[in-house]
């Protein structure tokens, strides 16, 4: 086993890990060694081809289809330099005040989160796209909302030089999306932080990380690791875990911390989602232009959020319910399709959690609560209303039976769409906002860390990613994750004298 000495090891390079790497970079000026271990690869710019199956395999865990234990929900999360920020859409919202208040974490207040979010928004070039860059798919959503008396809000997005390829979720081919892969990690590396890709942390021991560096497989995208393939023991004064809401609790459970922290892995939420499509008579611009410009926030009133979206052929096919001629007919109407993503604001409930098997395999357990099913049904009715109001002639609604609704049925949506039609295993549901598993709180009995990512009872171990959320955020989470990660880094800097001298 190779041995390495470092001062801080950060595990994961996503929204959390990338932020922490940048915030801790000043330590390198004092001669401290800050390392980031990322299990995924770093791609060359010319490897972002927009080819769906190739990019999904190169950038996501399980190609974006990580299946829960129940086999009824797929989770999409990144496994690459930049983590999920390399594949996110870049919609940039600040956590609602009421959500942070309801989390009830001592020493965590909304003003602090909002201030940090605004800083990162500025750093990531967040702005509203001008009108002439918004495509029909997005305009029709706004129009449909307006026609039924609702006001869609425009998403601020973090793009710089966006050409409108619509391929954000396959990694931006134009280096225009300002994820940690484009902003925070390069800044950290320039300042002296070392980012080691293809380096998976296998276990955490007392002030040490055991990691395995792999070589690229034949034909695989991505650069080789800067380190030789093999096993490493990296000793460090502080270890920061930022492997995401699945990766972080799984790694800590695998390392035996579950004995000390009974809440580890618990409280997993994910905004379970599916897509609805509306078919128009004429072609619309949908697969060109930034995919996500508007949303309708009904979280507080009805437990859901609607967002515009546009996916690629396979993901679209997979997300539509059913198969056979009706399904094919919709797929052939692709140039006339408008899409809406409905997301349920799920709650942290007992049983929905991350665990590891006896062999160390990561498992996610997730059951759809009656509240989530009802939220999805209400959201489906609303999305169908918006489609018809925008002029769609047919709507494919997963919770309608049969799923295809015609304009003539537009006034019967409440009867046609029902939560009873939600059949796990038949209804295609996926999620990309993974949260919780190492929740912040007060004590080891109710949480894993304090409000600053300090793991209860283990001063050298910190968490800085989406796993810190004690409950769902009810809105797109990346800016809030960066804010929490920034707090983790700040606390670590504050404790550095004690950490580095011990």
């Amino acid at each position, binding site marked *: 086993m190779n041995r390495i000495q470092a001062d801080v090891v950060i595990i994961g390079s996503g929204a959390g890990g990338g932020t922490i790497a940048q915030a801790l970079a000043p330590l390198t000026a004092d001669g401290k060694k800050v390392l980031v271990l990322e299990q995924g690869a770093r791609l060359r710019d010319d490897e972002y081809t*927009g080819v769906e199956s190739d990019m999904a395999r190169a950038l996501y865990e399980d190609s974006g289809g990580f299946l829960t234990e129940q*086999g009824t929900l797929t989770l999409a999360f990144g496994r690459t330099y930049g983590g999920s920020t390399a594949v996110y859409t870049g919609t940039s919202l600040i956590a609602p005040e009421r959500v942070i208040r309801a989390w009830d974490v001592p020493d965590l207040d909304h003003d602090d989160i909002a201030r940090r979010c605004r800083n990162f928004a500025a750093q990531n070039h967040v702005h509203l796209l001008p009108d002439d860059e918004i495509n029909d798919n997005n305009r029709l959503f706004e129009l449909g909302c307006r026609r039924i008396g609702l006001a869609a809000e425009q998403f601020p997005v973090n793009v710089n030089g966006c050409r409108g*390829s619509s391929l954000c979720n396959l990694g931006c081919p134009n280096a225009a999306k300002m994820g940690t892969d484009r902003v925070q990690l390069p800044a950290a590396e320039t300042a002296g932080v070392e980012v080691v890709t293809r380096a998976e942390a296998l276990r955490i021991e007392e002030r040490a990380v055991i990691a395995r560096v792999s070589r690229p497989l034949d034909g695989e995208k991505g650069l080789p690791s800067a380190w030789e393939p093999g096993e490493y023991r990296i000793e460090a004064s502080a270890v920061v875990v930022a492997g995401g809401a699945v990766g972080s609790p799984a790694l800590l459970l695998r390392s035996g911390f579950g004995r000390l922290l009974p809440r580890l892995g618990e409280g997993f939420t994910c905004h379970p989602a599916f897509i609805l499509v509306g078919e128009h008579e004429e072609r619309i611009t949908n697969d060109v232009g930034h995919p996500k410009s508007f949303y309708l926030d009904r979280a507080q009133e009805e437990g859901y959020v609607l967002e515009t979206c546009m996916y690629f*052929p396979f993901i679209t096919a997979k997300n539509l319910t059913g*198969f056979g001629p009706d399904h094919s007919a919709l797929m052939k109407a692709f140039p006339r399709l408008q899409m809406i993503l409905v997301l349920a604001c799920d709650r942290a409930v007992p049983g929905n959690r991350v665990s590891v098997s006896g062999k160390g395999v990561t498992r996610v357990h997730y059951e759809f609560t009656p509240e989530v099913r009802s939220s999805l049904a209400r959201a489906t009715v609303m999305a169908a209303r918006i489609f018809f109001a925008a002029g769609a002639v047919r709507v494919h609604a997963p919770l309608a039976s049969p799923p295809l609704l015609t304009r003539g049925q537009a006034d019967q949506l409440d009867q046609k769409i029902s939560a009873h039609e939600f059949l796990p*295993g038949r209804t*295609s549901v996926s999620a990309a906002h993974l949260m919780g598993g190492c929740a912040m709180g007060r004590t080891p009995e109710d949480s894993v860390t304090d409000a600053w990512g300090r793991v209860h009872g283990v001063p050298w171990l910190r968490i800085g990613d989406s796993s810190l959320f004690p409950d769902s955020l009810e809105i797109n989470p990346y800016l809030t994750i960066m804010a929490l990660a920034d707090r983790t880094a700040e606390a670590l800097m504050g404790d550095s004298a004690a950490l580095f001298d011990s």
Partner: protein
Amino acid sequence: MSVSLGVVRDPFRALCIAFVPESAELNEPGWRELESEVERALADRPTAIQKQMVLLIRILDLLARARHGNPLAALTPAARRELLTRLQDSRWLLLRRGVWGLRTLAFLGYYSRPDTAASIGYRADLRGWEARR
């Protein structure tokens, strides 16, 4: 281990045609392209899942023989769809999951082909607006 669909080729193709009727029009190289995409996806999954998928295809073929007296490949696409719809709506989660998994693989194989993307009018381009204006 990586699985080869060769051992269940006929029932697998019959299922694909039930899920995506247009796949019936694929020529042999088209089928190979579809199958290699599916095999590539399965190869990334644990061996147990690979084996379960092959087993499920075999069970569906047996079920077709038991119910209709013919293997899947000899049934009309409508009869295959009827069988799959029943299983998809079944009260047993395991059966619903199985159909969902197979359907996902068929869609992956079919809709990942560049020819398919063009045939459904999907035109996303790295150059974005510039490619359209």
